[in-house]
Structures are given as structure tokens and as C-alpha cells.
């Protein structure tokens, strides 16, 4: 039995790097936006941008997994990652639909 059967060391390091740097970048953007609004600049758009990046990070992570699984010819797990991405897209569409119904 192979002990490393569920390990993907390169993918794990890539994801670690993306999530780590992404969180710092998004937090930095949000902080800059909040601080500039304290001195009176209209900067809530910057804060929203930082929040959008934060929400995008886990989605990017699933996308990276999809790409690596497909490249490793692990089609079963490629399909599983694609399913997770599809559900997230459906949720976004549901949000857009519910927003439209509330305003319309």
C-alpha cells in the first residue's frame, strides 16, 4: 500500500501560496479603502473590490484543483471539482435572480 496515495504536494504548495498572498492582498485593499474613507475620501468601492477578491479566493482554489486534476488525467476528480464550481456559479445566479425579484 502506498502511503502517499491522497497527497498532491505540488498542488498543495501552489494553493497555499495563492491563498496566503491573496488574503494579504485582499486585506490590504480593504484596509486602504477603510482608512481613506476615514479621511473623507469616497472609497467604499475599494473596500467592495477587496471583499470581492476575498470571496473569489476559494473559487480560484477550486479552479486550480480542476486544472491540476485534469492535467494529471484524474478525470473523476476533475469532474468533482467542476461540479463544485458549477454549484458556486448556480448560487451566484440564484443571488442575481433573487435580487432582480426584490427590486422588480
Amino acid at each position: 500500500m502506498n502511503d502517499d496515495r491522497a497527497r498532491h504536494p505540488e498542488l498543495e504548495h501552489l494553493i497555499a501560496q495563492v491563498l496566503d498572498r491573496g488574503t494579504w492582498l485582499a486585506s490590504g485593499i480593504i484596509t486602504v479603502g477603510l482608512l481613506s474613507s476615514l479621511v473623507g475620501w469616497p472609497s467604499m468601492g475599494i473596500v467592495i473590490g477587496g471583499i470581492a477578491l476575498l470571496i473569489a479566493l476559494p473559487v480560484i482554489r477550486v479552479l486550480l484543483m480542476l486544472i491540476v486534476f485534469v492535467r494529471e488525467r484524474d478525470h473523476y476528480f476533475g469532474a468533482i471539482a467542476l461540479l463544485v464550481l458549477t454549484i458556486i456559479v448556480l448560487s451566484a445566479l440564484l443571488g442575481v435572480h433573487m435580487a432582480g425579484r426584490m427590486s422588480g
Partner: protein
Amino acid sequence: MNLGFSVWLFAVSMGASALGGTLGMASGIFIVPILIMFGGVAIHTAVAASMVSVIACSCGSAAPFLRGSLTNIRVAIVLETATTLGALTGVFLTGVVPVPFLYFLFAVVLLVSAWQMVARQREPPITSENAPMRDWATSLRLHSSYPDGALGRDVSYLVQRVPLGLALMYGAGLISALLGIGSGVLKIPAMDTALRLPIKVSSATSNFMIGVTAAASGVAYFALGDINPHIAGPVAIGSVVGALLGARFLMVMSGEKLRLFFVAVLIALAGQMLLSAFGVHWIGHVA
């Protein structure tokens, strides 16, 4: 923008995240009730803000677990099909479920969490020799090993009862989306009792998964306009700073006293949420 209120949001989120982190609890379970009861924030706005901070904490703390080979990313992506589907259901239900029911559900989750904190006991993980080999986990190649620092060697583990784990994770995703929490309340039975993951793998993997689960409802709340940057911004930054501090607190504070303090806080918040569910409000708002 009200400077005092922003600072209050930042401080509350930092405190909740630092203290929650020391006991392995996501901060949302404290942040959402505090925002609602003391901050006068509407429940949907509080849930959306908490969702952003859940994502920030999950992504911000994932790297060391991944580099230490504790996170089982195959188990994570399999279970994420269930948690995101649960989140999608939760988003749909937010438009249907009345607010008092959300308060009631939150109170139940708080009480169960308090009980779990007192009673959490672990069955020893099944070793490679005596477990069934023809099951979902084997065909999906989920079994793995992790390096144990204390033992100085790799420890192999088998993953059990994946269908039960998936069912519990669907519930966890649903509750997470409805209440803006990491919903450890269902993840603990799912990861420990159903899948029987070793504690380090279980914590690392569920922390990894909650980011995607929260993002699945986060995208919908973003589209719905529930994410108020004046509230979600300070809450997110406070949570990230708190999570960084929490890792240090862990070294200096007594575990047992902290545990009892947390149980008391959870029960007090549950009582407040129950009163809110029945329309009683007697706590003053700071803003």
C-alpha cells in the same frame, strides 16, 4: 461613515476571532449574535458580513496546514460538493424562512456547540489493518497519511462512511449559509464520527473547506447586495488580525478556564437569541 462604530466592529471581530481560534471555533458563531444584539445590525447584513470574515480566516490560515501535509484536499473537494449544495439550498431558504426562525435555529446551534464543547470525546481512528476496503473512500482514493511531529513519523489513516459524511456536510453547508457561521456543530460529527479522521487532519481539512462553502453563499449575498462594506470591511480585517493573535494566545492561556468561559458565553448568547426569536429585546445598541 461612523468612526466609533467601525472601531467597535473591528474590536469585536478581533476579540471573537482571537478567542474562538484558541478553541478551534470559527468566529462567526460569536460575531453574528453580537452584531445583531449589540450592534443593531439586521440579521441578513450580519450573516453576509460574517460570511466574508469566515472566508478571510479560512484562506488566511490554510497555508501552514497545507505545507504541513495535514489537509486532505481530496476529502475536501469530495465533501465540498455537499457543503456547496447545502449553501445553495441555504441561500434559497433565506428568501423564504422568517427571521424569528433564524434566531431560534441560531439559539439551537449555540446550545449544541456548548454541549459539544463540554462533551467532545474522540473514538480512536481505525487503523489500516481492521477496516473494510471495498467502499467509497477506497475507490475515490481518499485514504492518506500525515506527518505527526510528536511521534516523529507518518501516521496512516483510513477514511470511513463517506455517504454519511456527505449527508452531514450538506446540513453543515445549509446552516452555514443561513446563519453566517462555519457550522462546526455539524462538521465535528461529520469529520470525527462519520469519516473518523485524525484530529489534526480533521481540523485542517474542515478549515480548508469552509472557505469554499462560505464563498458559495458569499457570491449570492454579494449579488443580492447584502454585503455592506461599512460593516463587512471592519469585520473582515478584525477577524484576520484576531486569527493571527489567537495563535499566540493559545500558548499562554489555560485551556480549561477558557473552555468554561466559552460555554458560559455560548449559553448566554443562546438565551438572548431565544428571547429575540420571541420578539423580546432588552439590550441597548451601541449604534
